[in-house]
């Protein structure tokens, strides 16, 4: 009986730890910085190939007054690429130059491609 409760508790903890995880099409937080930079550069130059997919990306926040972007650097910190962000309802932006992880869908809004952010951490 004791073993049964321990197993149930363990399963409950494992279940709850998975609750906060958001499934995305492309999780770039565990990729090399140079490849993240390359992917973001390609998202800007050929956006239609990357549209309507969800992304999880790490970078520095820039911008203010409703216009935000995520800056990603390559491994040498020499080259940077900028991804336009649009914050979804209820999502607030931290201070400029803060390193954040954003989750969102790459969509076209008013003719411009941007990442519609649903979560910032």
């Amino acid at each position, binding site marked *: 009986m004791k073993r049964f409760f321990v197993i149930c508790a363990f399963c409950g903890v494992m279940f709850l730890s998975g609750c906060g995880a958001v499934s995305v099409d492309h999780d770039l937080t*565990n990729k*090399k910085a*140079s*490849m993240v930079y*390359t992917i973001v*550069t390609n998202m800007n130059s050929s956006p239609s190939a990357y549209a309507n997919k969800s992304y999880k990306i790490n970078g520095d926040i820039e911008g203010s007054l409703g216009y935000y972007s995520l800056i990603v650097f*390559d491994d040498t910190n*020499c*080259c*940077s690429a900028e991804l336009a962000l649009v914050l979804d309802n209820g999502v607030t932006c931290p201070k400029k130059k803060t390193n954040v992880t954003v989750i969102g869908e790459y969509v076209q809004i008013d003719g411009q491609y941007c990442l519609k952010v649903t979560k910032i951490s």
Partner: protein
Amino acid sequence: MNIFEELKYYFQFDFVKYAIVVGILISLCCAMLGVTLVLKRYSMIGDGLSHVAFGAMSVAMVLTIADMYVMLPVTIVVAILLIRLTNQGKVKNDSAIAMLSVGALAFGYLIVNIFSTSSNISGDVCTTLFGSTSILTLNNFDLWLCIILTIFVLGYFIFFHNKIFSVTFDEGFSKATGVKTAVYNNIMAMIIGVVIVLAMKLVGSLLISALIVFPALSAIRLFKSYKSVIIFASIISVINSIIGILVAILWGTPVGSTIVIINIIAYFICWCVEVIIRETRKA
């Protein structure tokens, strides 16, 4: 995620497939061209012309027009002039290359700094000079342009290999037997210009000579006939480029430098194999 899963993930992106295809085509062209240039002692011409191409690309960047429209014609014209000047003996080969190389590099960097509208000049210059990620940011137009130019280059080497061989090894005798050596030299200069501009996308301006020289030198270590050297240089250049691109993707290293290091390792392996074969034959 293991290596194969990582590669499978990256291969879903078109830019990775374009990089592999273009890498194979460019390394094939460089290998074939490299054998001729090494034998004619024009090894450093790639370096000089790549700096000229950098200067031309800087002008294109400032004028905000597609870089190929400026780089290709300028590099081809300079290549033809360079080969003509050295053949006529007006300027020594190495002096001409040195003048062009430093002059064009300095000019290019100066005008990019003074007139450029880019927000990240150092990044753009770094990418162009060292080819850190330029091969991974190709679009469909770049891919097809590369394919068409490669067909032109490979076609020339395949259909005119006999004439190329005779002009490379004994230009005087070829001229005496009626071969239009000036025409072949001009075509070769055009090919050099085209290959240099393409190779800049793969390894950057400063490292182009490695892509031209190392496969040829590796092949010359092991083979003595012209045909075998060309074939082996082509194979080893393609293999090195593919390995270099895959290593750069997996470990986040700059693509150009990685390919050059792989070429150096391959040259070292060929050198060791040559020594082993030579010692075995002696024994």
